[in-house]
């Protein structure tokens, strides 16, 4: 099964949610990932491969701009058109309270000389909301576990 976390940008909140889902919960580790704030990854528009969880589920994250729900609707319909279902791909939206501001900050960080300030502000917001994000991921994992029609079991936490 594939699991895709989508957010306004794919290299901040959605990426951290994907890593949390995979069992990485150290704040230091999460905030020092090389992919965090990587513009080339984000600008490609392609899903970013975050890794595999212990159950073999492929975990991805993706930035889709300001209208996250519209893109979720499109991806869900697109899967149906191709003959796939939520057994093959689950899309989870990651929306923070300040997502409009984060999107604008990310746009700002693209301007020459503004990368550091934009990145710092988004990381600050990420740090502040990390516990909420952790909670959201835990609820999502519980939902998957309780869903009877999904061949999914909760990934075990990292022990390596």
């Amino acid at each position, binding site marked *: 099964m*594939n699991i*895709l976390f989508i957010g306004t940008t794919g290299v901040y909140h959605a990426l951290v949610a994907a890593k949390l889902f995979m069992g990485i919960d150290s704040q230091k580790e999460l905030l020092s990932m090389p992919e965090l704030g990587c513009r080339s990854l984000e600008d*490609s*528009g*392609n*899903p970013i491969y975050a890794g595999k969880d212990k159950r073999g589920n*492929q975990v*991805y994250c*993706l930035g*889709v*701009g300001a*209208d996250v*729900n*519209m*893109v979720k*609707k*499109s*991806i869900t*319909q*697109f*899967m149906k*058109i*191709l003959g*796939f279902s939520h057994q*093959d*791909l689950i899309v989870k939206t990651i929306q923070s309270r300040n997502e409009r501001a984060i999107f604008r900050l990310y746009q700002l960080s693209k301007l020459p000389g503004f990368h550091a300030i934009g990145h710092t502000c988004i990381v600050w917001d990420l740090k502040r909301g990390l516990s909420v994000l952790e909670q959201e991921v835990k609820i999502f994992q519980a939902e998957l576990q309780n869903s009877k029609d999904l061949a999914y079991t909760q990934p075990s936490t990292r022990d390596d």
Partner: protein
Amino acid sequence: MKIIYHCYGGSHSSVTAAALHLKMLDNSRLPTGKELMKIPYYDKTAKDDFGSIRFMGTDEFGNDVYVLGKKSLGDRFSNVLMGVARMLGAEDQILVVNCMNRVNWSMKLGGFTSRQLGFPLLGRPVVTYGTQRAFMRITNLVEITRLKALKQCSKL
């Protein structure tokens, strides 16, 4: 194969391209306003239709043709859909075509007035005029897409 034409609102350029692809419009002459208005979804979409992939028909080679409005996501949206198809191992079954590079100012202004502001009486004649002016450029895009689809189908 599935072919998805997309533009800002999924109401004018993508719908015209899909209609050309499906031979609902004659590509050898400019369509009249009445002919354009007969196309399903042409200048008829609502705000809720953003992000909806709508079926337009099946072409003579068995390819299903769809239209989609994706707001200002540009080429990024093609990458998103192609990326998801790749994730599912289905990238050979799909062709995503951005129509925005064939859209002129009359189409933008008329489309915005008709669909976003909700004044079709004012916007429709402008967007129809714009579509007629952009018609040959859209035809060109459709011909390129049909060739790409043929090439991709022969690989499968």
